[in-house]
């Protein structure tokens, strides 16, 4: 059963220059300059129960807007969406009790209070039965290893600890759908890893549906089988990580360790040279040509070691974005010409 169904979802903002101050604001009442900005344009997406989906995209691509639409924080300009059968922006209490949103850059816990006080408030607002509340709190704080921090004011916690506390807050009412907006932003590698591990475990145990946005590739590689790439408000790609690599990186990286005294002269004629730091040379060559290039290299040069790798995922994705931007510009140009 599809748990999230999105059809033709579009969100445009009418932007005008907001100015500070009453005088400017009053002046603004008479003449305002509007400009339509597309945040999301005509997105179609279906997510099944129990999927863990990553939204990838550069800043301003529309990832966060999509999550906000799905959590009912903002209204769409057009299109429909249903999550567990609810229209999010109608904000039914039943719906709001069944999902949670975590934003890495904003915190909802009371800053000066220990996290457990905020949790107690959640218990009241979400009407969580006391025994469920205690059991979940125990489980979650155990899993995230923050039990002894529950009584400490949030402002005294590190960024990673705070994020864990935010996650607990989001999961106390046992949501069926979880939206995570850049949950690992700004965290160090260890904290990032901990949170990934937790999310992986929790999602597998509970079979809940998670939508995650991030621009950290590690998050995506660690957690999600399915990746949706959004750029300029349009879905550019929807599939598995491997597919991305296959279809968007048309080349491989060949690293050579040349023997002593061997010059790198002439290599540029065989393949594109990415860097030369003798005795190391890095080449890029199209997938179909790897064998031919390697044969020539081995024949003409003295080599100590060599390796053939896929390009880093970041680079592939960056290419994907760039491609997309180019296409959009072209289609935009076509549209304005027509």
């Amino acid at each position, binding site marked *: 059963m599809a748990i999230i169904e999105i059809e033709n979802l579009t969100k445009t903002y009418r932007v005008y220059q907001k100015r500070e*101050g*009453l*005088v400017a604001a009053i002046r603004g009442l008479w003449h305002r300059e509007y400009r339509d900005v597309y945040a999301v344009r005509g997105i179609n997406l279906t997510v099944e129960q129990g999927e863990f989906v990553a939204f990838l995209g550069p800043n301003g691509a529309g990832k966060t807007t999509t999550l906000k639409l799905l959590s009912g924080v903002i209204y769409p300009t057009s299109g429909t969406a249903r999550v567990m059968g609810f229209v999010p922006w109608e904000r039914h209490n039943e719906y709001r009790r069944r999902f949670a949103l975590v934003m890495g850059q904003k915190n909802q816990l009371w800053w000066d209070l220990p996290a457990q006080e905020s949790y107690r408030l959640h218990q009241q607002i979400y009407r969580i039965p006391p025994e469920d509340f205690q059991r979940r709190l125990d489980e979650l704080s155990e899993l995230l290893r923050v039990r002894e921090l529950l009584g400490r004011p949030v402002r005294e916690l590190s960024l990673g600890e705070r994020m864990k506390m935010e996650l607990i807050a989001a999961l106390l009412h046992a949501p069926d759908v979880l939206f995570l907006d850049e949950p690992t932003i700004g965290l160090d590698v260890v904290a990032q890893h901990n949170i990934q591990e937790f999310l992986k475990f929790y999602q597998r145990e509970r079979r809940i549906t998670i939508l995650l946005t991030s621009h950290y590739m590690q998050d995506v590689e660690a957690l999600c089988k399915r990746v949706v790439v959004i750029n300029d408000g349009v879905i550019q790609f929807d599939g598995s990580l491997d597919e991305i690599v296959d279809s968007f990186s048309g080349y491989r990286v060949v690293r050579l360790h040349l023997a002593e005294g061997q010059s790198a002269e002439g290599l540029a004629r065989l393949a594109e040279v990415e860097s030369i730091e003798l005795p190391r040379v890095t080449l890029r060559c199209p997938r179909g040509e790897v064998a031919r290039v390697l044969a020539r290299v081995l024949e003409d040069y003295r080599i100590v070691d060599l390796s053939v790798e896929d390009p880093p995922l970041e680079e592939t994705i960056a290419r994907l974005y760039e491609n997309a931007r180019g296409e959009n510009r072209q289609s935009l140009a076509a549209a304005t010409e027509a």
Partner: protein
Amino acid sequence: MGTVTLPTKASIWWTIYRTALAERLAYRGDFALGTLMRFLPIITQIFLWWAIFDAAGGGAVGSTRLAGYSFHDMVAYYLLSMLGRAFSSMPGLASTVSKQIREGEINRYLIQPIDMIGFLLLGRVAHKTAYYAIAIGPFALVFFLCGNYFPAWPEVDVWVGMFLALVFAFLLGFFLDLCIGLIGFWFLEVSSLLFVYMLLNFFLSGHMFPLDLLPPFWRQAVGYLPFQYLAYFPAAIYLGKIPADQLWYHLGIEACWLVAVIAAARVLYARGLKRYSGFGG
């Protein structure tokens, strides 16, 4: 510092002044409206005193006098005390200074060849210049609308006395606030102290009511404090409450206060810096 010639110094100060002025003028629209709105409480004051004079005089508002003030004098007093406050009030000065001390921003005055007090004073002068350039409109408008509350046009020496009183009020207000801010060298939290000081200032400067209404003993006591020069004194000069022969005497006393407060600020600053450097910032 000793080797810097006077013209160079002057040009440095001039640059600081111009920069601060430009920064201030960026907000001129809000300034004008904000100044105009600041006169709104005067309206309730007028009605309050109207009712008080009414009751005190048994209905004869025009001929009633309280502590020598007619109803019209009273309204004029409040308007004029606003003018005094426009010179003597230093919004944000003490809190900025104590914050700079607390957060170590003061280091920049230790590193750069600038005197902090001079720098702040110049910034304030720029702030006030910008303020007057814009506030003169609202002030002129309100004073014109309330023109018939004011007594007849006074003599030249009253104008001169008032002008001096306003300039002194500015300087006195600046250095008093600065002293409070500099206490931040000794106490981390000065905001509560500041609040109490502001309340006292509000009450004792005559901003809340003409000090002449106070019972004689208290009137005399308040006369021994510097606060009355911040709002009461300039207004009282204009309204002829200060006899002509005592005008210069009072201005002289005010000048003495000014010298004392400047000296106090200098001492606090020097001692504070010593303490600050001693603790290693």
